[in-house]
């Protein structure tokens, strides 16, 4: 499986995601944002970080970079696209995913391990997880408060496009287990065709027991399935 990780000035999780992908034997390439051609890829990853220093709005400038036209073209023709953290913000700015990520409700940058629940395990990104499985995954963001209009929210629910929700350890979805104020505790969503996933938590940080846990690894092994 061939993957491409797009690197923007200010990306800082690009090498972490490359390590995760290579651990699972993906043939990975790093692609600089100024490129105008994308190597043949089965998976495109928009990594976490602070592309362009979050100028204007998080992900806004990266969302107009040269390589993005290629990413949009590939995504529309069915290529798998994964956006993590800033990558999720970039996906909403390009319009590949609907909605937007607002400033965290408590106005603080949050960096901690939180629990999320696998809401839809019938996707290319989550088929190795059990439905309703609770994972412990790190989040690190200032703008992770997912917001969308009621029509799109209805669509998300009806078509099972919510991939992950924030929960507590036991899997309860409520205000207390919502770290950033996200609408309906949403932590990750899919597009209608389910080939694009955007999520705020960092699965690439959870691939090794030595430094964290292995709760994130099945996201990458699902892609190989």
């Amino acid at each position: 499986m061939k993957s491409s990780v797009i690197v923007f000035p200010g990306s800082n999780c690009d090498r972490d995601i490359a390590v995760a992908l290579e651990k699972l034997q993906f043939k990975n390439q790093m692609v600089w944002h100024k490129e105008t051609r994308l190597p043949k890829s089965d998976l495109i990853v928009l990594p976490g970080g602070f592309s362009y220093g979050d100028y204007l709005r998080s992900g806004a400038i990266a969302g107009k970079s040269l390589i993005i036209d290629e990413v949009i073209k590939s995504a529309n023709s069915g290529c798998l696209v994964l956006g993590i953290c800033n990558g999720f913000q970039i996906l909403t700015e390009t319009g590949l995913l609907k909605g937007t990520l607002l400033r965290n409700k408590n106005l603080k940058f949050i960096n901690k391990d939180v629990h999320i629940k696998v809401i839809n395990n019938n996707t290319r990104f989550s088929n190795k997880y059990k439905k309703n499985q609770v994972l412990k995954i790190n989040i690190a963001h200032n703008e992770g408060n997912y917001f969308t209009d009621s029509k799109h929210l209805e669509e998300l629910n009806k078509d099972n496009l919510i991939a992950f929700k924030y929960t507590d350890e036991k899997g309860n979805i409520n205000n207390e287990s919502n770290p950033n104020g996200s609408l309906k505790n949403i932590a990750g969503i899919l597009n209608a065709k389910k080939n694009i996933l955007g999520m705020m938590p960092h699965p690439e940080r959870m691939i090794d027991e030595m430094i964290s846990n292995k709760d994130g690894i099945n996201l990458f092994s699902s892609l190989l399935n």
Partner: protein
Amino acid sequence: MKFSVTVTLKKDVLDPQGKVVENTLVNMGMNNLKSVRQGKYFQIEVDEKDQTTAEAKIKEMCNKLLVNLIIEDFKISKI
């Protein structure tokens, strides 16, 4: 030709920064304060003589980059 663009959060979108500024102003003893909403301001100069064409260009900039239409509104004025 020079324009100003003011970008504000839509009425129903929560503005935590504005709220904190508002609370601080109240704490400082500012009287009769009703509410504070925080936004963004741009000054843009375009090389264009016709005002209608120039405004259309600025509007396109707003729609394509400067404004997130899901949560923000904008106002263009000539300066």
